[in-house]
């Protein structure tokens, strides 16, 4: 059987209903979906997952992508998910780019399976973690204090 894999860099609004429908098969009984949104207000201090945080306000984010490589790496993330969780049926990985304001969903990773105890939650979590490591997308943060490119800190190894 051929399982659906959706991966794209898009300027369109994310439509969760449509994306979920596209990865739902007759045998599907469960979906785990992660979405990330633009935070208008960040209160965390310190460092987590390579990002230094200090409390601040965000007016908006400007996302850019190296589109053909980003889509190729999204497909790679999907293939890694299928290797680790062979029970996963459909996978959707979509990154929205452009000028995005607080509360707007920017990224979606969704995995479906026949049952919920098959690793779908872990698979979606792995998907967003990997996207933030190897998919060439960057965001510039526009705050009341000025503009700044956000940089990750993951350095891919040969073969990634």
């Amino acid at each position, binding site marked *: 059987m051929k399982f659906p894999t959706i991966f794209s860099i898009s300027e369109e609004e994310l439509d969760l209903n449509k994306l979920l429908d596209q990865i739902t098969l007759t045998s599907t009984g469960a979906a785990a979906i992660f979405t*990330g949104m633009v935070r208008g207000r960040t209160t965390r201090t310190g460092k987590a997952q*390579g*990002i230094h945080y200090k409390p601040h306000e965000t007016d908006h984010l400007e*996302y*850019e*992508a*190296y589109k*053909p*490589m*980003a889509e*190729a790496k999204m497909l790679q993330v999907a293939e890694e998910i299928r290797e680790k969780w062979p029970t996963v049926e459909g996978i959707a990985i979509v*990154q929205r780019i452009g000028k995005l304001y607080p509360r707007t969903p*920017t*990224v979606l990773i969704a995995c479906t399976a026949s049952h919920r105890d098959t690793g779908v939650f872990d698979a979606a979590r792995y998907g*967003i973690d990997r*996207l*933030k*490591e*190897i*998919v*060439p*997308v*960057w*965001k*510039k943060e526009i705050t009341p204090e000025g503009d700044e*490119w*956000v*940089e*990750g*800190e*993951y*350095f*891919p*190894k*040969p073969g*990634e």
Partner: protein
Amino acid sequence: MHKVKIMFFATLRTRAERRSMELEIENHLTVAGLKEILIAQIPALEASLPSTLISINREFAFDEELIPEGAEIALFPPVSGG
């Protein structure tokens, strides 16, 4: 000699003050060799080079790798999507 296309993204685009360039390079040039040439042409790149990622034909590339003919090369910082 052969021609390659080089693209710059995010902070690297800002530093290089351009989105892309074409470059005539000798055969058997490595990624490390390319970096030297680029720094010579665009000195502003040097400061961020330790945290610059390089891709060749949409795969991450590393210092010892040879640059194939007609390669599509990109320079960018660690990714920050999501």
